């Protein structure tokens, strides 16, 4: 098991290296010149060249990636200008290892940006996850157990409808009516636990989490229903009934146990994806999380931030994959990790 995890981690690191190279490459292939953008509208060619140099965009592709990779291990100084270090050391920003870069556009190390925005995304993800797992799985199980009844048809129909609505639409709807028009809740504004306590934090997350959860929940209702139905028709469920077990035991101990295994996998991966920021939800509700940061970084061609976010998100997914695999082995004794 340990050997397996180590092997997977090594593969994950290789994947991260590849992804960082690909992100750099895509950035380089683009005809957009970030130095031109940073330099502003009244920018002579000489100023642009100087801007490119000071942002580190004048080096070739490999040198830039090399500096980035080195920074991850030993840290970097921005700007890395030997003369400036002597004459005005107070203007040098040090980015300690593991340094994912320094965003000139946001005047901050990428690590600091992530530290600032990740709690927001994580909060939305956690609360939304709780909503959609509890709601989606519960309703999916009910639909499956009440198969063919009005309840089942109602739930399946509703989830289809909700699934068809784009997230931003649900978000705008909630925002426009629940918060603005009817004023049932204040217009949501992210409140950290440190500021508002658990209640303040939770209530600030209500609308965004519901928005996000509704979409996932709709999918999970349908998925859970399908898995439970499939599991109910398994031979071992028939065996359990043939033994004379009460219906409750058959349903919960035998059918659900098997049905929920694939849901654990999906949920783990979905959650990992969400930790990287729910771009649409964060934009609609103006929550300063990773998703909004990614959009902003994309708008102003902020390579360091983009690379940092790609790597962060990729690590989430890689780690989640490993966790899910390990979890799967714990749940399903047939899976041997070797």
């Amino acid at each position, binding site marked *: 098991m340990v050997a397996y995890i180590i092997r997977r981690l090594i593969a994950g690191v290789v994947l991260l290296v590849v992804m960082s190279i690909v992100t750099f490459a895509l950035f380089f292939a683009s005809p957009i010149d970030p130095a031109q953008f940073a330099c502003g509208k009244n920018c002579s060619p000489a100023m642009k060249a100087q801007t490119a140099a000071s942002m580190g965009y004048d080096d070739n592709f490999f040198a830039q990636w090399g500096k980035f990779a080195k920074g991850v291990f030993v840290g970097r100084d921005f700007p890395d200008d030997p003369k400036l270090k002597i004459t005005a050391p107070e203007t040098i920003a040090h980015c300690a290892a593991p340094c994912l870069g320094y965003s000139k556009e946001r005047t901050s190390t990428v690590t600091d940006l992530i530290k600032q925005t990740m709690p927001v995304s994580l909060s939305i993800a956690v609360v939304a996850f709780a909503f959609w797992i509890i709601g989606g799985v519960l309703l999916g199980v009910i639909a499956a157990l009440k198969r063919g009844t009005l309840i089942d048809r109602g739930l399946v129909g509703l989830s289809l409808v909700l699934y068809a609505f784009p997230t931003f639409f649900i978000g705008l709807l909630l925002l426009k009516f629940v918060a603005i028009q009817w004023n049932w809740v204040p217009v949501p504004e992210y409140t950290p636990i440190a500021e508002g306590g658990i209640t303040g934090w939770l209530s600030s997350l209500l609308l965004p989490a519901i928005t996000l959860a509704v979409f996932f929940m709709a999918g999970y209702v349908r998925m859970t229903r399908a898995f439970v139905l499939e599991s109910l028709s*398994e*031979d*071992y469920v*028939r*065996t*359990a*009934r*043939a*033994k*004379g*077990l*009460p*219906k409750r*035991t058959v349903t919960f101990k*035998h059918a659900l*146990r*098997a049905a929920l295994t694939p849901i654990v996998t999906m949920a783990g991966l979905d959650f990992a994806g969400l930790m990287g920021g729910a771009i649409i939800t964060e934009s609609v509700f103006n929550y300063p999380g990773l998703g909004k940061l990614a959009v902003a970084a994309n708008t102003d061609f902020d390579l360091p931030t983009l690379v940092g976010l790609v790597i962060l998100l990729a690590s989430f997914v890689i780690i989640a994959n490993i966790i899910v695999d390990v979890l799967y082995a714990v*749940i*399903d*004794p*047939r899976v041997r990790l070797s």
Partner: protein
Amino acid sequence: MTDMHSNDGPYLSVEDLVVHFPTADGIVKATDGLSFTLGRGKTIGVVGESGSGKSVSSSAILGLHRGSSAQVSGRIVLGGTDLLMLSDEEMRLRRGKEVSMIFQDPLSAMHPYYTVGNQIAEAYLVHNDVSKKAARARTLEMLERVGIPQPDRRIDDYPHQFSGGMRQRAMIAMGLINDPGLIIADEPTTALDVTVQAQILDLLQDLQREFNSAIIIITHDLGVVAEMADDVLVMYAGRAVEYGPTKDVLTHPQMPYTWGLLSSVPDVQGDTNAALIPIPGNPPSLLNPPTGCAFHPRCVHRSKVPADLCTTTLPELLPGSQGPGHTKRCHLADPDELYRTEILPEIMPDLIVED
């Protein structure tokens, strides 16, 4: 014996059992008027192709169709009680205790996430108010009895860690842990190697003697029937087409479908001259069964029946030339003669001489 009904008649009596499944396309008549009886300590073999209704009928005896859309009617009298008249809860309490089932393919019939011991003990705990420890002891005892080596070690293994034969032994242990009066074994050896098959059948027979249980053995393998069953019931398209004492049916089959079954059995005795003749055509649709005799589209002897009797009239299940205990559902006038002259020489050339 305190069972007041035990001597009144056969232990199990199935009368005119009907199992219909309403579907969007119409009614699937999986079992349509099945009757048979079975005494304590006796074995009946139910034979037929897949889809002939044999598994559906046995599931109906166990009450497994309850809670589904299936329409079940007729009478299933077990030890004097009509199982179809019981409430769901009363039936549940009998399931696994008085009637138990040994399933085909124990790999899928056992839950992959629970240990073998856990699953067997569960069957005991649900019907007996004992501690988990006592259930475990009983489980060990049963595992030992069915011939699992080192049961104290294997009890905590998962099904996938067992070999096919061991899994089937474990299934048997699970089925017999409550000393049921009736055991339904659904293709208990199909998934197993030939050598293991024999061991399992021996085990079942041993246990039957020990517990004096009645066994319904569902199979498509006439070899199994020959070895195990006292009576045999051949099913086709949801109905019994031939029913009688095993020896009688196997030696003097009265119905072309039974002939077909016999000819499609590989001869284990090793007669290489025997022709293996499959039954032509496909099993009939249960949604729109053929008119008249359901077997007529596949029957090569149809022409020997006058008029269009085979295609228009469903033959009754009636005694043939072998006495009242051996019934068949066929319009052929003299099936014995036909079998002896046309069928036997082809499938068992060696046996003709003896006959």
